[in-house]
């Protein structure tokens, strides 16, 4: 009967009879024409079933109990224990009216959350790989050559020909002491070496791990560092990017880099070259990169003053020889003398060129320190986003960066949940609509059959 709002045509007789009924029910006089209808109306009112006192008391008791209950949401079911307890043969209508909507909605929500969590957890490694800018396929190996041009033009590290003649020392920190590593001190650490070729280490630490040895006055020292970092498998690429950023800020050069980011893990091997005065700062900042922990760190220095001086003397000798040969060439008269002197001059010039190259390589090694950075995936704990070192504190930019990532992840989870919830919600809504239609139809059919 619901929904039949179509207006029926007005009938004067119908209107008059309805008016007569109203007048009869209200006790007002009725037109004699409708006296029979008025009498029928009063008879029907007289036939009104009355509530027996015991029934009224039972209804009052049940309603009073119901008032004590809090208002329920849609689909709330009365506790089963109360049903039927008040009557021997309860005929509670709607008893089997299951709150399908609430159950369906709750079930859909739970399923959606489970799926979203599963996708999020499963996608963790995928997200790590995807963050590696398209080089995330498993076991894919990419070699990046950042600043390759400048590295090829300016770095081109010459092979240290004098390394065999030089002595060195190394500082090593163990993984267990990543936060404040102690160093294996060498005998010559506290001051300038007393003689050429002896190991030379510097003093006055300034970084969390202590500085590398600064050059003593007039001495030529090659400094280098090796750093092994561990991070979560998903952040290898991110830590490498941070390392590149640090080196870029210090006017360093990425000579060679290999970043392998896979879903299962990954690693990065980066060969860096930084100005020697920036090496302590570089090592310090690299040691405190966000999301990374120091597995090991080695600071090495090598005093090459002896070989440097020797190379300089050799160069000076070669130049002097060439000058002498040129003078002799000017005084030569015979062709045989000229040919002999010319050959000797060529040899002297070759020697000069060789000595110059050796000296230039040595000076470059002294001016630019090499840093071997290795980033490997491992188990935590890893450094906090703000950096693991005390020097890298909480900054606004890092907080903004982390907030951005949190929002991104939250938005992703919400999107996944929405993708799951939307079709489920539509299905639940459709099922609820069908259920409501069927229930209404069932009620109307029950009324027709009554």
């Amino acid at each position, binding site marked *: 009967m619901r929904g*039949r709002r*179509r207006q029926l045509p007005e009938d004067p007789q119908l209107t008059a009879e309805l008016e007569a009924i109203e007048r009869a029910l209200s006790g007002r006089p009725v037109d004699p024409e409708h006296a029979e209808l008025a009498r029928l109306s009063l*008879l029907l009112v007289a*036939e009104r079933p009355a*509530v027996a006192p015991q029934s009224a008391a039972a*209804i009052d008791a*049940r309603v009073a109990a119901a008032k004590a209950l809090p*208002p329920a949401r849609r689909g709330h079911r009365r506790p089963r224990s109360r049903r039927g307890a008040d009557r021997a043969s309860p*005929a509670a209508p709607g*008893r089997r009216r299951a709150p399908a909507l609430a159950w369906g909605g709750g079930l859909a929500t739970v399923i959606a959350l489970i799926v979203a969590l599963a996708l999020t957890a499963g996608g963790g490694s995928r997200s790590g790989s995807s963050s590696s800018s398209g080089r995330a396929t498993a076991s894919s190996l990419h070699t990046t050559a950042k600043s390759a041009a400048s590295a090829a033009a300016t770095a081109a590290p010459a092979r240290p020909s004098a390394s065999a003649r030089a002595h060195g020392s190394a500082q090593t920190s163990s993984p267990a002491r990543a936060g404040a590593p102690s160093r294996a001190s060498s005998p010559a650490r506290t001051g300038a070496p007393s003689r050429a070729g002896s190991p030379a280490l510097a003093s006055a630490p300034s970084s969390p791990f202590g500085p590398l040895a600064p050059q003593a006055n007039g001495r030529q020292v090659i400094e280098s560092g090796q750093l092994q970092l561990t991070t979560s498998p998903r952040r290898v690429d991110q830590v490498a990017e941070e390392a590149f950023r640090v080196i870029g800020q210090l006017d360093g050069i990425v000579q060679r880099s290999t970043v392998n980011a896979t879903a299962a893990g990954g690693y990065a091997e980066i060969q860096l070259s930084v100005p020697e005065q920036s090496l302590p700062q570089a090592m310090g900042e690299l040691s405190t990169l966000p999301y990374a922990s120091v597995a090991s760190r080695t600071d090495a220095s090598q005093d090459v003053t002896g070989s440097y001086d020797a190379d300089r003397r050799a160069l000076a000798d070669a130049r002097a020889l060439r000058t002498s040969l040129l003078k002799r060439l000017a005084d030569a008269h015979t062709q045989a003398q000229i040919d002999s002197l010319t050959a000797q001059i060529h040899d002297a010039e070759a020697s000069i060129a060789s000595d110059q190259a050796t000296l230039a390589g040595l000076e470059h090694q002294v001016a630019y320190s090499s840093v071997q950075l290795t980033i490997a995936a491992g188990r935590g704990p890893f450094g906090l986003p703000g950096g693991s070192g005390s020097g890298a504190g909480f900054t606004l930019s890092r907080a903004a960066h982390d907030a951005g990532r949190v929002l991104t992840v939250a938005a992703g989870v919400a999107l996944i949940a929405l993708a799951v919830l939307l079709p489920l919600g539509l299905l639940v809504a459709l099922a609820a609509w069908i259920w409501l239609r069927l229930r209404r139809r069932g009620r109307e059919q029950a009324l027709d059959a009554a």
Partner: protein
Amino acid sequence: MIDTPSAAGEELGGPGWGRLEALYRSSRDDVYAYVCTLLRDRAAAEDVTAQAFERAYRRRRTFDRRRGEERAWLFGIARNAALDELRRRRRLARLIGEPGEAAPGPHDGAEEALRRTAVRAALAQLSGRDRELIALKFHAGLSNREIAGVLGVSESNAGTLLHRALTRLRRACEEEEGS
């Protein structure tokens, strides 16, 4: 019995406790009469009446005054409860007996008693829909507007439907009296 409940404190969007209490006091017997006529079972009518008020108390926040008056809302709940009871009976295929016949009043004459018997028999012959209309109008005391709210039809349609039901009842009464 069909007085409008007094305005008491109201909750957000629904009748308050005081208003519901007044509604209960003014409508309990009306609801019972309507349900009893519809179900033709006094015991079931008692249970369904209590059930209807329990539902009304639980769902008082769902009441929307823009969709009708409180009595129409209450009788809508009672109607659904009664129809659910009818559905349950159909599923159980359990026939409930006719309602206990009211004894003739002490001042009823023979003709009046005969007339009442005829009306009762005619009422029993009516379909469920017609009987529901008669019950809403003459037993529950609802106005045509309230009946329209309960049944989800327009007020004029409710009057028309009531008139048709009454016409069929009169015809049935005449047949009963003629037989």
